[in-house]
C-alpha cells in the first residue's frame, strides 16, 4: 500500500515507550460499537502521529469514523484496543481529573453539530470553559474572541437567536477560550455557504500559522482539505494518507 514515513504509520506495533516528539500518537487504536448483533468498527486498528504545529485535514465518507477518531484524540472516549498518547501522556493511565484538566487546558473541541449551551448568551458560552480550567476566561478576552470570529455585536444573543454559521463561529471562539495547544474541529463548516466556510478556514489557518496551534480539521470539502500540510482520509475505520495529496507533494509510494 502506502509507504511508511515518519508522519504516518499504519498497522504498526509501535510501542508506547518509543521516544518521539509527536504531539499526538495513536498505535493500534480501534473503537468498536455494538449495534444490535453487529459489531461496528468505527475506527479500526489505526496508528498515526501528528507533530506539534501540523495542520491536518481529514476527509472521508459519512460514517467512516472521523468523529470517532477525533473523540479518541480529544480524550472524549477510550479506545477499545490500542493506545492514545497526547502531550506525552498516555490517556489510559490518567485519572478522570487529569484527563479533564488536559481537555480543559490544552484541547479545544469544535463539534460537528450545534453545541452551544442554550441558556447562555454567546459571550457566556465563550466564557464557559473558564470555569473548568485553572483560570477564568475574562470578559475582555471572550469579547476579543467573539470579535475575531466577527460576532462581537451578537455577544448578548442566545444561541437560538443566532444563525447556524454564527453558532459555528461562537463554538470556534469557545474552543479557543482556554488557549489550547490543539484544536480538534469536526466539520465546523458543516452546512455553511462556501464563503463562510472559507472564512472559518482562514481563521484556522491564522491560528495555525501565527500561534503554531496544532489543528485537526474534519471536512467534507476536498478544496478545504488541500490547505492542510497533511491530508488524511478515513475509509470504514481505516486511516490513510490522501493519495492525491501524496502525489501533489511528490512523496513516493509503493
Amino acid at each position, binding site marked *: 500500500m502506502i509507504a511508511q514515513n515518519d508522519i504516518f504509520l499504519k498497522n504498526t506495533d509501535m510501542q508506547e515507550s518509543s521516544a518521539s516528539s509527536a504531539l499526538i500518537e495513536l498505535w493500534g487504536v480501534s473503537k468498536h460499537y455494538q449495534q444490535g448483533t453487529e459489531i461496528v468498527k468505527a475506527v479500526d486498528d489505526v496508528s498515526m502521529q501528528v507533530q506539534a504545529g501540523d495542520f491536518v485535514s481529514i476527509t472521508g465518507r459519512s460514517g467512516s469514523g472521523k468523529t470517532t477518531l477525533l473523540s479518541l484524540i480529544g480524550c472524549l472516549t477510550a479506545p477499545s484496543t490500542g493506545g492514545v498518547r497526547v502531550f506525552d501522556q498516555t490517556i489510559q493511565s490518567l485519572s478522570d481529573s487529569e484527563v*479533564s*484538566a488536559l481537555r480543559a487546558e490544552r484541547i479545544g473541541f469544535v463539534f460537528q453539530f450545534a453545541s452551544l449551551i442554550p441558556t447562555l448568551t454567546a459571550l457566556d458560552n465563550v466564557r464557559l470553559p473558564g470555569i473548568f480550567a485553572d483560570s477564568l476566561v475574562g470578559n475582555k478576552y471572550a469579547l476579543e474572541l467573539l470579535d475575531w470570529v466577527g460576532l462581537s455585536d451578537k455577544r448578548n444573543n442566545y444561541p437560538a437567536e443566532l444563525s447556524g454559521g454564527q453558532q459555528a463561529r461562537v463554538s470556534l471562539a469557545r474552543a479557543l477560550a482556554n488557549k489550547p495547544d490543539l484544536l480538534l474541529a469536526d466539520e465546523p463548516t458543516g452546512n455553511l455557504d462556501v464563503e463562510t466556510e472559507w472564512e472559518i478556514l482562514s481563521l484556522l489557518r491564522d491560528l495555525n500559522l501565527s500561534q503554531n496551534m496544532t489543528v485537526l480539521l474534519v471536512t467534507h470539502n476536498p478544496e478545504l482539505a488541500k490547505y492542510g500540510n497533511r491530508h488524511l482520509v478515513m475509509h470504514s475505520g481505516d486511516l490513510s494518507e490522501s493519495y492525491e495529496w501524496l502525489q501533489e507533494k511528490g512523496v513516493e509510494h509503493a
Partner: protein
Amino acid sequence: MKDINLFNLALQNLRRKPYRSVAIGLCVAVMTGSLFAATIILRGVQTSLSVGQARLGADLVVVPTGYKAPAQEAFITGQPTTFYMSDQIEAQIADLPGVAQTSSQVFVQTLTNASCCIGEFFLVGFDPQSDFTISPWLVTHLDGQPLGPLDVIAGDRILLREGDGATFYGTNFRIAGVLERTGMGIDRTIYVPIEGLRQMIADSAELAEETLTIPPNEISSVMVSIAPGADVIDVAEAIEGNLSGVNVFTASQLNQAVARQMQGVMGITFGVTATLWLMSLLLVGLIFSLIVNERQRELGLLRAMGARGRAVFQLVMSEAGLLTGMGGVIGLLVSGVLLMSFSRLIQLRLRIPYLLPSMLEIIGVEVGLLALALFTGALASLQPALSISRMEPYAAVRRGE
C-alpha cells in the same frame, strides 16, 4: 450572567423549566410543611402535657364513679362538665394513710354567653384555705391582698386581665390573678373561691336568667397530694377500696388519656406525611432522571470542555439541592405562619392540650426538616447524577443527539 460558575449554571437550568421547577418545589414544600406541622403539634401536646401534669398539682384526683373520662377531658381540653358528690368524701379521704393534703372543687354549668368572655369556658369553685393546686401558678396577682370571696383567678385563655371585673350568674367578681398558660383545659377555666361561688349559686335565683341548683354540701372533685414515701397506686387503691361511689385517676393517667386520643390523629398524620415524603422522593428522582436524560448532550459538552465527572455530578446535585432546599424553606415558612395563626383553632378542633414548643426547639425541628428536604433531593438525584458523571463525554454527547 455576571459570574459564570456551576451554581449560577444550576440556577439558570432551573429557570429554564419554571413550571417543572415550581412543581417539584411545591411538592417538597408540602412534604416539609406538613411534616413540620405534625412534629410541632405532637411536640406541642407533649410540652403542654408536661406543663399541665406539673400544673395539676395533685397526685390523685377523686371524682364520682363514672365521671373519670369527662373529668379527664375537662382537665385536658377545658370541655365543661358537671357532676357532684357529698362533701363528706373529702374528710374521709384525708383520714386515709398516705394522704398528705386534700382540697375540693365544685364544677359549675357551662357559661356560653357570659357578657365578659369570648367562647365557652368553665367555672370551678375552689377552697383558698386548703388549695395547693391553683394558687402556686399565679403569674400575676394583686399584691399583698388575701383573696376575697369575690376575687377570682382566670386561666390564660379567658382574655381577662388582673383587675378586670366580670359578672357570672348576676354576681360581680374581680379578676385577682391570671394563671400561666398550659395549653390545657386550665387555660379556659375561671377559679372562684368557694365562699363566693356558694353566694353566686344562692343569688342566681334572683339575679341570673338561669337558676343554679347545686346543693351547698356537694362537691365535684377532691384533689389529693400524697405523703412523701407513699405509693400513688397504693393510695389510689385505698381510696377506691374504702369509699364507695368514687373513681380515682392519677396525673400520669391524664397523659395516657391524651395519648389515646392522639394516637388516631397522629397515626394518620404521620402516615400521610410519610407517604408524602416517599412520593416527593420518587417524583424528584423521576424528574431528575428525566432532566439528566434530556440534558445528556449538554452535560457531555461540559465534560468535553474540561468539566470533571465530579463537576457534572455537583451541577446536577446543586440543581436538586436548590429545588428541594427552596421548597423546604417555603414549606417551613408557610406551615410556620399557619401554625402560629391557628394554634388556638388547632387546640379547639383537635381537642388536645397544645402549647407551642420553645423557640429553640422549633428552630431545631426546622433545621432538621430542611436537612431532610435536602437529603431527599440528594438521594433522589444521586443515581442520575452518578450515571451521567461516569458516562464517557463522547457517549453523552452522542446519546443526546
